[in-house]
């Protein structure tokens, strides 16, 4: 159960092959959990409940509702840009990993991108837990020095006339990008708009687009 119980062959293996036998880490975490439960230090039902909360309740659908509301309600958008923590709490999203929220707005002349170069800070109440790439060295190292190159890797070419702002989450402020509402979405209601908003758009590595069918009409 020591910190060195992993071999170099597992390094950077995010492939997650199906396992015939439990991995070292699987055994190690199971042993630690058993010990903590046996000592009365942890309630295993609380662990189940924590996992359920972040697998099923708290995720990017929350942030998408915030974005859609801002798109349809100018007064809400104003509150969101002025005091994001309070405006997001209006929709019921608050707490751990997002006690202090800032929302930054994309415009035709401004593109925002969020990173945590030092660890993995991410706005949990609105986006849930971050994807592996967000927590990994390539993104953390490059987002600040080469944001345009990073965005290109995500398929997003930012014009020279557009300013790119990178937000490095070094304190307890958590950043959410308010993406641009897609052109041609005027007929969509708030719920339909929310369905278009992706996690990546709220980190700033994607734009929100209409599905092909709707953009043709």
């Amino acid at each position, binding site marked *: 159960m020591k910190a060195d119980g992993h071999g*170099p062959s597992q390094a950077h293996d995010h492939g997650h092959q199906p396992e015939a036998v439990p991995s070292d880490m699987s055994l190690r975490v199971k042993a*630690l959990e058993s*010990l903590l439960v046996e000592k009365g*230090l942890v*309630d295993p*039902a609380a662990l189940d409940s924590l996992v359920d909360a972040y697998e099923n309740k708290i995720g990017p659908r929350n942030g998408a509702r915030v974005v859609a509301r801002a798109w349809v309600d100018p007064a809400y958008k104003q509150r969101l840009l002025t005091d994001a923590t309070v405006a997001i709490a209006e929709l019921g999203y608050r707490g751990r990993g997002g006690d202090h929220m800032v929302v930054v707005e994309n415009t035709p002349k401004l593109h925002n991108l969020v990173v945590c170069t030092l660890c993995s800070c991410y706005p949990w109440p609105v986006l849930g837990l971050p*994807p592996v790439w967000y927590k990994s060295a390539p993104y953390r190292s490059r987002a600040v020095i080469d944001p345009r190159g990073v965005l290109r890797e995500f398929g997003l070419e930012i014009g020279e006339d557009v300013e790119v*702002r990178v937000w*490095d989450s070094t*304190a307890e402020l958590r950043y959410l990008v308010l993406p641009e509402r897609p052109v041609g979405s005027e007929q969509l209601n708030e719920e339909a708009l929310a369905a278009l908003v992706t996690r990546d758009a709220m980190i700033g590595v994607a734009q929100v687009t209409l599905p092909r069918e709707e953009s043709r009409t």
Partner: protein
Amino acid sequence: MNGVHDMGGMHGMGSIQNQVDEPIFPERWEARAFALTLAMAAWEKWTLDASRHQRELIPASEYLAMSYYEKWIAGLVELLVKSGLLTAAEVESGKPAPHSPRETPPLTAEKVLSTIARGAPASRDLPLTARFQVGQRVRVRNLHPTGHTRLPRYARGKLGTIDRYHGVFVFPDTNAHFLGEKPQHAYSVRFAARELWGDQAAARDGVYVDMWDDYLEPA
């Protein structure tokens, strides 16, 4: 500390592996590692800053080789032993020490959602005078503390502008070491990309870094 975790601006880390429809926890042990870390934090034996610092203390070669939740577990085990919640012998054997008392967990299933919603605000309502004003030019102090800091290397010594005022916040550099909260004003500081990275950066781009009073001096 000038650790490998402070990787903003480094080269050689490879390309971004963007996996479509990745599960929240690709392996079940990762879900348990995550939940154990949150559940044990409820004992309030350490601060969030201390747990971040514990992961930074993982030797650089191991830090780069470990997956995300491997680092969490490595940090958690160290904190459990340091705080006395477990002994090193218990960690080694996987068995409770003989005659050790049975505790009562502070976080139960019923309390999980309310605990998440309550959060743990790091702001402090204190009548302190802000040292800097929005729009003011500032220089980042050239600090290289050996302990925890949230001042990334790439910003040290650089000139920036106070873009936004955040309020009074707990100072991680002391709080991580149980040396008190030392609350002080925090700001978002804008750095021109060229101030940080030279002419290769786009002229209009900027990097915004959240900083406390102690990181800054008037320019």
